[in-house]
């Protein structure tokens, strides 16, 4: 149930959902490419750290 005092129009919410889906799909593609490029890193810690940094850089987030 929508409890907002100013409910968004159907067209706006569809557009927002569409943008979010595109962003999510783009982020998943980006993350997938980074994982692919690091596919032979194994348990090498420096390489895994670089992967973490690169993933954060590509996704515009902080490294986790």
């Amino acid at each position: 149930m929508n409890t907002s005092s100013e409910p968004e129009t159907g067209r706006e919410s569809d557009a927002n959902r569409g943008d979010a889906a595109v962003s999510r799909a783009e982020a998943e593609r980006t993350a997938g490419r980074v994982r692919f490029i690091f596919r032979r890193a194994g348990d090498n810690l420096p390489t895994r750290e670089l992967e973490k940094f690169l993933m954060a850089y590509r996704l515009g987030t902080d490294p986790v």
Partner: protein
Amino acid sequence: MNSVNSVSLPPLGLDLVIKNINELPSPSLVMVELLHAVDQDDSSPVALAKSISRHQSLVARMLRMANSSFYGMPGRVETIADAIVVLGLRTVRNLAVTAGLFDSLTVISAPGFDLDNFWRHSVATALGANALARRMNLKEGSAFVAGLLHDVGRLVLASNFPEHFAAVQRYQSEYDGFPLEAEQTILGIDHAAIGSLLGKHWLFPATICNAIASHHHPVDSENDFLAGIVHIADALAHALDLAGNPTEMVPCISQCCWKRAGLSWHDSQAIFIEIEREFNGFDVLSKA
């Protein structure tokens, strides 16, 4: 026996490689002098302009690059001295070395070799090595040149031993392997050793030859700092995916080199940004 090696190839011995390298066209003396000046980091603006001006094709290429829209001064850079004022000494020096080596190496014919991919990776590695060297207060010029030349042995392999090179590529494709392990398995010698031999034959500075030779397995030593820098820059370049290689793959990084570089998240982020920004300026090279 693996399937890619089922067609027997003659062994690729050191003597045969050296004989072939000796037959390759050499870079001009001016280019070799420029490399040594860059290695010594003693290229003053006047000396650099003088050195570049002695190489007419280099002057023409440099001015086309400096006047490209990327640098925002189209048609306004008329001399090498102008280029140094507008772009800065470091950028002109790096552009000159890249353009000169591009001219020297593209005369080596290698059908089937993706030269564009090779140059893009080489330039990205050179920029990464330059950024790392600056951060570590080490010679930026040497680092740039060593990064630019680190894989030159692959070009020699492709041009002089096309059948061997094709077998290496088949192995890589079949096992999703790194070039180094494929070369060692199929040929018994690798591009790092071959590149170092070429550097010695072409009278490149010893520091550069050593960095080419050991960029995949740098020794944990203060004297081997340049190989360590190129080793990490190579990984950064692969990670940034700038070469346009669909099967791009980051090689494993040496623990001691990574520790010595001491890259935090913020350092890494700054270096990623710097490499990508400067890379766009060098991308005009292939069109200049």
